[in-house]
């Protein structure tokens, strides 16, 4: 009797087994449905729309690679690409800066918890607010920047209306929350650095930069990896700040691909052209996304 019972318990009946096969799909169904309709399918559709001339109202007409040919001759496109490259490289400053701030704050003095949270503040705020704050900071008539420059006998400058400085001005604004984000990643990373290794290295006479470079940084690799990916993707995705601070101006000199696409599609009613720009942006970003996914899948396989 007892034997029979255990046997029943350990050999699941057929219905149990099939339930175990069906259950994960039932659990995933709503998420897959939403994600498929709003993320996966639109990507495929955008690829397709990029091959058409379409104003969003009347019938589409197929023009093959026409949008792309036009795009590669469009100065605004190259300005946008160049600005995105600038964003990409300058945004990476968020990593060393974030690390520097994290090292500065990684102490246990009185009130440090509150100070850490306050340093993290800019990341919590909407980019629209960050944009407004910096637009005003740079304001040529009354901005704080010019007041400060005035103190040392410089200025005034109008950062956001000078085509040579505008993108740098916006990127600086973008770095503010991004540094905060990298800082929090590194602070968490520093918490899990192995203290014994540090002590051992110190006994061996390593200190300062050497200790940081050879002992601490290797242990911070997971944090660096996340910071790197999120920062690069953030740079390529830049839209909010540019739209709020200059809307691409002056004369389109601060355009980035995301904003250029938005203008083409919604203000010039060129959906096909917009979709083509979006496709280019997507392909550029796919390189980074693929790199991230490759690392992640590899990591999963290793840990099982």
């Amino acid at each position, binding site marked *: 009797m007892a034997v029979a019972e255990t046997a029943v*318990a350990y050999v699941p009946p057929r219905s149990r087994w099939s339930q175990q096969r069906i259950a994960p799909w039932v*659990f995933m169904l709503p998420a897959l449905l939403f994600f498929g309709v709003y993320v996966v399918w639109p990507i495929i559709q955008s690829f397709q729309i990029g091959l058409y001339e379409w104003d969003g109202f009347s019938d589409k007409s197929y023009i093959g690679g026409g949008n792309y040919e036009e795009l590669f001759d469009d100065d605004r496109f190259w300005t946008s690409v160049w600005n995105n490259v600038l964003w990409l490289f300058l945004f990476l400053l968020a990593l060393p800066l974030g690390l520097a701030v994290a090292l500065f704050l990684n102490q246990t003095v009185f009130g440090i918890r509150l100070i850490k949270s306050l340093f993290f503040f800019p990341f919590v705020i909407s980019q629209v607010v960050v944009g407004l704050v910096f637009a005003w900071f740079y304001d040529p008539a*009354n901005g704080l920047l010019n007041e400060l420059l005035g103190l040392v006998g410089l200025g005034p400058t109008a950062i956001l209306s000078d085509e040579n400085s505008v993108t740098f001005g916006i990127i600086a604004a973008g770095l503010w929350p991004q540094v905060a984000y990298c800082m929090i990643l590194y602070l968490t990373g520093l918490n899990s650095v192995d203290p014994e290794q540090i002590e051992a290295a110190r006994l061996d006479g390593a200190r300062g930069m050497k200790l940081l470079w050879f002992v601490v940084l290797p242990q911070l690799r997971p944090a660096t990896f996340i910071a790197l990916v999120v920062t690069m993707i953030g740079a390529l995705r830049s839209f909010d700040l540019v739209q709020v601070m200059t809307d691409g101006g002056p004369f389109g000199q601060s355009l980035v691909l995301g904003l250029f696409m*938005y203008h083409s599609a919604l203000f010039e009613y060129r959906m096909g052209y917009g979709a083509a720009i979006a496709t280019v942006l997507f392909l550029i970003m796919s390189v980074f996304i693929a790199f991230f996914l490759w690392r992640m899948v590899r990591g*999963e396989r290793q840990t099982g």
Partner: protein
Amino acid sequence: MFPRPIEKASPFANISYRVALPIALVVWLLPLAAVMLTSIRTIDDINQGNYWTWPSSLEFWNYVTIFQTTPMARFMINSVIITVPVMIGSVALAAAAGYALAKYKFRANIWLFAMFVGGNFVPFQILMIPVRDMALFTGVYDTHLALILFHVAFQTGFCTLFMRNFISGLPNALIESARVEGVSEYKIFWFIVVPLVRPALAALAVLIFTFVWNDYFWALVLVQSDAVKPVTAGISALRGQWLASWQLISAGAVVAALPPVALFFLLQRHFIAGLTLGATKG
């Protein structure tokens, strides 16, 4: 610990560190402090160009003005109407999907997981035209629902990543022993897994609140009337109307930033745990 604890350094270094700390903080938050000060300046101060000195008198009336003369209250309510359902919806979808990806072995598992993670990083512009068309076609364009549906779908990517990693950490034995007892798969999820992941659900909800509250792009693309616009698109539009009335723009900015900031301070631990998940592994 790295760097070396400052207590162990020389008294001079010790004191300079404690002095440098608040100075660094002030410099770091200078733009923000200026906005807060400006939001309580009088119009006279602004007209005289006193932007950066201490206000000559405090004018909290600016905050009343923005609520009286603009649809600021409406914008805030819209943001709440949009954000709260998204928070619940995407967390619920992701808890189920994350459980499936964490605890069931099937061939498509890792690829579906990669799809959720990858989808989370795509540029919004590649989704813009089809999603906007879909909203126009189904008649939800310029309603709260348009934003809610899209955000639920999009945030599900990040949430699934988060939940899947969290649930992976739960012991398999727990689920196995329930199966041996003959508990159905669905009951295992509802009565065993969900109660255990409650802290993660909270962390996630806080994060999603902030992401969605701060969204600007989709607010521009999917809605246009003041009756449905969330506060990010709202203050951006008001800025054109207020021109150089920086005291009003500042007050608006402070109000718009307040809910996520308050939430962050109330639930800081959850917030940071959410953001840094995965930063110490992988």
